């Protein structure tokens, strides 16, 4: 994004100033940050309106109905049913707007129920297959792993064996930990839950470790922009 035209240069300087205004929040809440935040929220809403119209209303409502109306005489009977169904969907969608009226807000239950029904109906079988069956299948792994194809006890791959065993034990212990339907007072229950917690802590620690990299990547990108595109880019634009 290094500037090569005058308006790009203005843009890069504006972006840099806005970035520094946002960074100023690190020291203290101040008017510059609040102004920038107001512009950010307003811009996001504006962009949301534009995207909702051009990516949603226009291709899915305006264009199909324009086409249908233009060719209305040649449509077979099935397309009339299709048009009626789309009109019904449009009416259902418009019912969402009833949320702004206190007396008529109950009308928004219909489109909400429609969307929830669709999502649930589609999601249940796919969810079972993707998240339960496949993950359970991946947990049914050999607890003892051999280095070759033959079962030769002298050739156990110890790292893989310990790993697989710990994976299966870990899945069962964590699932057991999340089972709150009965009190866990006996030694076995408490020990299993504790082991489950240990696995969870290792998992969350790994998540935190990766989160550090993710956050720093974002900051690195921003500092790159300030250094390469703003300062060095501006100097290059003026021929230095």
């Amino acid at each position: 994004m290094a500037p090569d035209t005058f308006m790009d240069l203005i843009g890069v300087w504006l972006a840099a100033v806005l970035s520094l205004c946002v960074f100023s929040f690190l020291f203290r809440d101040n008017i510059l940050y609040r102004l920038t935040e107001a512009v950010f929220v307003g811009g996001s809403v504006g962009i949301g309106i534009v995207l909702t119209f051009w990516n949603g209303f226009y291709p899915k409502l305006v264009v199909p109905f324009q086409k249908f109306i233009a060719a209305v005489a040649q449509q077979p009977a099935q397309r009339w049913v299709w048009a009626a169904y789309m009109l019904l969907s449009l009416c259902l969608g418009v019912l969402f707007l009833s949320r702004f009226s206190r007396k008529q807000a109950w009308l928004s239950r219909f489109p909400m129920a429609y969307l929830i029904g669709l999502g649930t109906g589609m999601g249940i079988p796919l969810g079972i297959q993707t998240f339960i069956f496949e993950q359970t299948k991946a947990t049914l792994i050999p607890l003892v792993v051999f280095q070759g194809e033959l079962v030769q006890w002298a050739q156990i791959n110890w790292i893989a064996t310990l790993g697989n065993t710990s994976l299966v034990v870990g899945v069962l212990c964590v699932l057991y930990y999340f089972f709150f339907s009965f009190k866990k007072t006996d030694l076995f229950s408490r020990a299993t839950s504790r082991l489950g917690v240990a696995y969870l802590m290792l998992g969350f620690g790994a998540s935190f470790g990766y989160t550090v990299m993710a956050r720093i990547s974002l900051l690195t990108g921003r500092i790159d922009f300030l250094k390469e595109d703003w300062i060095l880019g501006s100097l290059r634009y003026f021929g230095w």
Partner: protein
Amino acid sequence: MRAKLPMLICMVTGALLLLQFFVPHPFVQDTLLEWISNSAMIVGVFALAIGLASLLHMHGNKIKRRLPGWGFSVITLVTAAFVATIGLLKPAWGPTVAREQYVQCEPDLHGSIRTTRVVRVVHTLFGFDPQSSTTNVLIGAAIMPVRANRTPLYSWYFTYVHSALVSTTFCLLAFYMLTAAYRAMRIKSWEAALLMVAAVIVIIGQVPADQFVPLGHINGVSTFEWLKQLIMDYPNSAAKRSIIIGVALGGLATGIKILTGIERPYLGGGD
């Protein structure tokens, strides 16, 4: 009627979608799916509009009642109106109608296709440029404008204002993460110790620290990288897999309750 009809709609639509997986007839697999998908997109678009309208309503209310900070709400609404206008009306003039690149494809002497790029840089500042409305045009595999901007003002705003603000707001998290690491990662219990050890191993394992500090090797791989991969492959995978299965089972139970009408989350509309 107000409670029973939505419940009926939910059950019927859910059942129709479940049919997809059990009825291989082309009408169910193709036509019904297409109708339902299109219909859901149309209804869903209004749901997006509700979110935006609520935000505008909230800021409008703040201005009307002169609540603290109403001045900033004015700026918010003005910016929203400006961006929505330039995005919806797509004015042909604007600051970035300045650059067009053409790729010219023509056979050379040996018969293979040679591409040359012609770059035309025109500085405009809110001037009308009739070329700004051209899109990619293929004329017998010859000249083809590669980057013609149809929404110059909106694109300029998006690139230099919106993207900058979004990126910078999110990168503040890096600073907060570091202070959190300093303040909160304390060995207060064995669980916290485990979490911290795993975090430190993964943090060091991700970067080529062994290039600067000798950290040893296991199986030809840097020690911390090997340990990191071990943590990711086994205890982390075990924990996350259990969470995935648990959440999926919970979701399945909730889904069945919704489809059978035991749970009715859509009844939040009020009477």
